[in-house]
């Protein structure tokens, strides 16, 4: 099957790859580029484990065709940390013990970063509604919601400081 040459930006670096027309962005990230931070939980958009930011929008990478990434800007879980330091959402997940097995964690963190980037003052109900597309089977969500609330507070303090 003929493959398409794609030029895109991933986590700030210009990246090129070849992809079959039917290949998902998730498949290329994981198998071609070795960016395995996006996880495959369902491959049909039901679990959110493969969340990435696509031109600033939160998407399930399994539901995006790789060829759509032409000239796009993509942020994966690996690109959330700011250089050597953790993002406030990542730090809050650690401090609040908001992960157990950790397989859903990269997706939750990308989604929470997408939410708090726009709405750092999101309340519990808003956070629950925004993260309803991310499944976690270990935590019962309690500590995840608390971690996102805490990160939002930190980000607001940081913005006002």
């Amino acid at each position, binding site marked *: 099957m003929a493959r398409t040459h794609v030029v895109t930006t991933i986590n700030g670096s210009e990246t090129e790859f070849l992809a079959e027309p039917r290949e998902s962005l998730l498949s290329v990230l994981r198998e071609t580029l070795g960016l395995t931070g996006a996880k495959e939980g369902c491959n049909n958009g039901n679990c959110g484990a493969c969340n990435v930011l696509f031109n600033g929008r939160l998407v399930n990478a399994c539901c995006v065709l790789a060829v759509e990434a032409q000239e796009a800007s993509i942020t994966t879980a690996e690109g959330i940390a700011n250089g050597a330091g953790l993002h406030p959402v990542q730090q809050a997940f650690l401090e609040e013990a908001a992960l157990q*097995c950790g397989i859903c964690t990269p997706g939750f963190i990308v989604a929470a970063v997408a939410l708090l980037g726009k709405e750092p003052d999101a309340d519990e109900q808003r956070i629950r509604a925004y993260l309803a597309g991310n499944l976690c089977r270990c935590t019962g969500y309690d500590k995840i919601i608390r971690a996102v609330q805490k990160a939002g507070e930190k980000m607001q303090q940081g913005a006002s400081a």
Partner: protein
Amino acid sequence: MTSAEKPDFKVVGTRPIRPDGVEKVTGRARYGADTHPPGLAYAQILRSPHAHARIVSVDLSEAEKSPGVLAVATHSDLPAAEDKTEAVGEGAVNIKELSELILASEKVLFAGHGIAAVAAQTQNQADDAVAKIKVEYELLPAVLDVRDAMRDDAPILDESRRTKELGGETSDRPSNIASHSQFAAGDVEAGFAEADLIVERAFTTKMVHQGYIEPHSSTAMWNPDDTIAVWTSTQGPFAVRSQVAEILRRSLGSIRVTPMEIGGGFGGKMTIYLDAIAAVLSRKIGRPVKMSMSRRDVFEASGPTSGTAIRMKMGVKDGKITAAEASLTYEAGAFAGSSVGAGAMCMLAPYSIENIKLDTYDVVVNKPKTAAYRAPGAPAAAFASEQVIDEITKQLDVDPLQFRLQNSSREGTKMVTGMVFPTIGHEECVQAALDSPHYKTPIEGPNRGRGVASGFWFNGGMQSSVAASVNPDGSVNLTEGSPDIGGTRASLSMQLAESLGVSYEDIRPAVVDTDSIGHNDVTGGSRTTFASGLAVYEAGQAVVGQMKERAAKLWSVEADDVVYEEGVLKCLKDSTKEMTFKEMAAQSARTGGPIVGQASLNARGVGAAFATHIVDVEVDPDTGKTEILRYTAVQDAGKAVHPSYVEGQIQGGVAQGVGWALNEEYFYDEEGQLLNSSFLDYRMPTTLDLPMIDTIVLEVPNPGHPYGVRGVGEVPIIPPLAAVANAVADATGQRFTDLPMSPRRVVETLQELD
């Protein structure tokens, strides 16, 4: 709960950041499917679309010609399997049946049963090729429900199967009932004769899945020297190694299993669905082969837990349970071996009852072979027993927690198995529930109700092996073999720090492959923080012992003249002589070489776990939807090593239990097709389905562990099914004896009553 002589711990009981945390929040941690060795090929399995059929022929010719295809394999590529049983983690597996489960030879026994495998250059090519395999089937009638499967005229899955009856006798005709066992104590007839109230009810639960977010994935490389490397996501790398060795007839020492990070297991990641066949394909092509399940494969071809039918009868006199009798029938799936025995043993353990008779039936049906799922067998059993108790308390008009307290097991109570309880915390759990802010707040409003329930889980001991290597700068590498599913690197590092008297930050843990540490049983049975914790404690004490001996030599005194207090070696003969842990570590080369403490054990002194839950619900009579308004889970942890992760285990167990109660079920059509094999249609709780889950963690120390630790992971899934059902009964006046209490079932039931 808190005794006067409660020991003062420095590290145990604190809430540090887990050692593997940064890798997991940055997307760098490598899970099963993240394996990518050079030259990797990809494989796929053709799975049966039929629930029960004879395989007439398999034509692989078109698949072999498909672009990118490297090799194909069927059951005939596996060596002839021995008809023997191997212990695997929490249960046992028959090797011949395991071989049939991996790839079917003559008959498919469930929709999703593997038939043939293809390896190709890419995953898409493997998927394409599998679609070109032609299989001719002779369809057979399928049997899907445990009660139907027990009928005399039921379709038989295995003509050679005979029921193993009580006492080892077997029947003389084929049956789907693999075994019938009984647990009994006292005289139930006398107990019921004495009772002034008897309640009897029948209950059913549906097959449900563990629902881990990470699908199974295994990568194998069969090297030219006949050594085999396996990278996989598993709860038990040593269990994988022994199964691969049995299936492929290789020695244990020739197989190295590397446990990747594991994205959830809950009991479901111990069986080798993929590993051996990936190895067979690798041998054919001389390259590593990766095999991953799709989400649909996970639902259809891994190991969910049994659907059940349970009849329960209980008698009381003057508020005291006089007798209990039950029959428990559990679906084993396509091959024998459900968790019905564990379910029966747990069912009434929270209560002191003299007269008990429990009959258990393990029954095969045309569905996936079941596997362990968090406290395997117990939630469905408690769904029955805790509702019968609720019914009794409603009829007697007594407080359901007071009734449980009056009938509670305590130290010295004899279980139905004959085992006598040591120190346990059920009474404490019930009392704490009674005293909780939740229970003291009345529930008000229309269509609202409150339910409570208790649960018991044995907890596991089993084998663990660890090593603690002291570095010259005083940091310590902890080498362990228990995959970390929910924070055990943290809980074990904390126990080692406590044992050594050093700080948590000085410990660096690693979960290593099967070549690099002694045998470790699975991460399962709520055993790791307890049993590997016990090993870690002993390894720490071994390090301290070696340091004392070395200090004694340096100071020219006897080892008994050296004491170790709060990280400092002190000489009893000369108070000027002291060495810190770090100073002694720096002296290791010139005092005899590296200081390494090791411990290997088969843990005794397991402390049982009890829990009592309270839940408030609101049931919408128009839609049938049940909303969880408030949830409080009380649990005895013995000693909460890392309280945040103990709370997390409890909250996670509650969430799974609530999903089981309200929505989750394997939904089959009459032919045995699973109709909801996706996360959209198999409805697990989301962020919007649960409130914050309050936890009350009690600490009734386990006398069998130096820090009092009891396993915590499993018991929290046991009470929710019954607690929610009791709350729904309180809200609607209608008792729901069949799970799930989905909106459709609730609304139909309530409308029938109108």
